[in-house]
């Protein structure tokens, strides 16, 4: 009996939380289309989510490309088709690893900080203060962040893909001796616009997903320092899991 009771309680809480998250998203999306937009806040957010994540993206991008170059080369030599290293690396990056790894890295670097910042604003009554001034916290905090995510994620992903491809080039061409022309030439033949569109669509949806989850968790944080730390952890875990789940579904629909 007790197990049933616990199961029921768990189901109800999850349902309520899920519903609250969807309402939060719906409200935020409505507010995006209600002017005025807070430009300066959005630019500050783009700087925070985008520009400040550059180093991390460059580092992870180049090493992901290098690892791919190494592993894919090793696999391809078994079939004697090393010539396809270029497209293999590029397609893996553009279609999957670029958007996904980029989103995961930005979640860790910027998403956690967003949740903590909004959570602290909640527990120190700064959000109440906004409301008390008849200013809508959605407009001031959430909308600029979501828009910044939609702008920054595709750009970061593009940079990730680019340096990744050059990382693969470094290993494949400079280290393992594939011809430069082969690496880039085959890439040109096999990578189509559809692959790039898919990558961009994915990164756009991740941009929305990460900023949504992180803003939501901060907005409805619990009490005190413990509440904020729990909200931050939950935001990172939930974002990361949702990124991978969503990636599978988008991939299977778009493939």
């Amino acid at each position, binding site marked *: 009996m007790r197990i049933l009771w616990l199961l029921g309680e768990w189901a109800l809480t999850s349902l309520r939380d899920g519903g609250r998250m969807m309402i939060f998203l719906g409200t935020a999306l409505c507010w995006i289309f209600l002017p005025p937009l807070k430009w300066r806040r959005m630019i500050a957010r783009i700087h925070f989510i985008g520009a400040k994540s550059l180093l991390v993206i460059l580092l992870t991008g180049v090493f992901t490309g290098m690892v791919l170059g190494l592993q894919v080369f090793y696999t391809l030599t078994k079939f004697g088709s090393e010539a396809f290293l270029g497209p293999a690396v590029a397609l893996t990056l553009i279609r999957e690893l670029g958007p996904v790894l980029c989103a995961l890295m930005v979640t860790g670097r910027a998403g956690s900080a967003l949740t903590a910042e909004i959570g*602290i*604003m909640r527990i*120190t*009554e*700064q959000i*109440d*203060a906004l*409301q*008390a*001034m*008849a*200013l809508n916290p959605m407009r001031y905090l959430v909308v600029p962040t979501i828009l910044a995510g939609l702008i920054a994620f595709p750009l970061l992903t593009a940079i990730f893909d680019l340096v990744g491809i050059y990382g693969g080039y470094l290993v494949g061409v400079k280290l393992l001796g594939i011809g430069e022309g082969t690496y880039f030439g085959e890439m040109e033949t096999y990578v189509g616009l559809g692959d790039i569109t898919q990558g961009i669509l994915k990164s756009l949806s991740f941009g929305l997903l990460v900023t949504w989850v992180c803003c939501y968790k901060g907005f409805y944080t619990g009490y005190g320092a413990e509440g904020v730390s729990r909200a931050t952890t939950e935001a990172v875990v939930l974002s990361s899991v949702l990124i991978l789940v969503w990636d599978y579904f988008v991939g299977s629909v778009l493939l």
Partner: protein
Amino acid sequence: MSGPMVEMRNVHKSFGGQQVLRGLDLQVTQGEILVIIGRSGGGKSVLLKHLMGLLKPDQGQIVINGQEISRLRGRELDQLRERFGVVFQGGALFDSLTVFENVAFPLREKTRLPEEAIREKALTLLKQVGLADMGHKYPAEVSGGMRKRVALARALTMEPEIVLFDEPTTGLDPIMVNAIHRLILDLHRRVGFTAIMVSHEIPEIFGIADRVAMLHRGAVVEAGTPEAIQASANPVVRQFITGDPEGPIQPD
């Protein structure tokens, strides 16, 4: 004008089965300073949040200038909130903005005044709270007493009719407590707002209040002039103002 400016009638509110307000009645006259005393966790902050429309009562009415406010939404609620200034417990200053920007924030967001006029007005307010040369600092860089004064300046920026104070002096040294009280009195005399203040500072608040209301178990048990409250025969009030751990109120 006739009748009270703010009136709460039989307000009930509970959170997750826990009753915080149970049949609260309160009246505030225009221009007075009403201080609400009572134990921590007794529903004082919840009461203030009802007045701002941040919380809705489960039952009962809140009337401000003859308008029932507890069911207001959207634009009407915004108009109501514009008549309030709020000094939050910890100040609730925006920590990404400087002291000056915090005070100027409501003007920048809610008016179309030119930058010059905004600067002048914000500086005048900062001067009134004695912080004219602190404008460039961030809230984290100034002392607790200064933060409370900045919060006071920000609350007055839009010239509100009613100012709510949520423990404006908690955590400050006795000199600063009196300095803030004197500042509030001074501004009250000059600007003429109606003040509703939640405070624990006994006996200091008897010096600034026009009326004092004692909140206990989610209801007002007694309200009256400071003299009447100090002379009260109600054992709950007596125990609270003397701070006696023995009596009808049990420390939990």
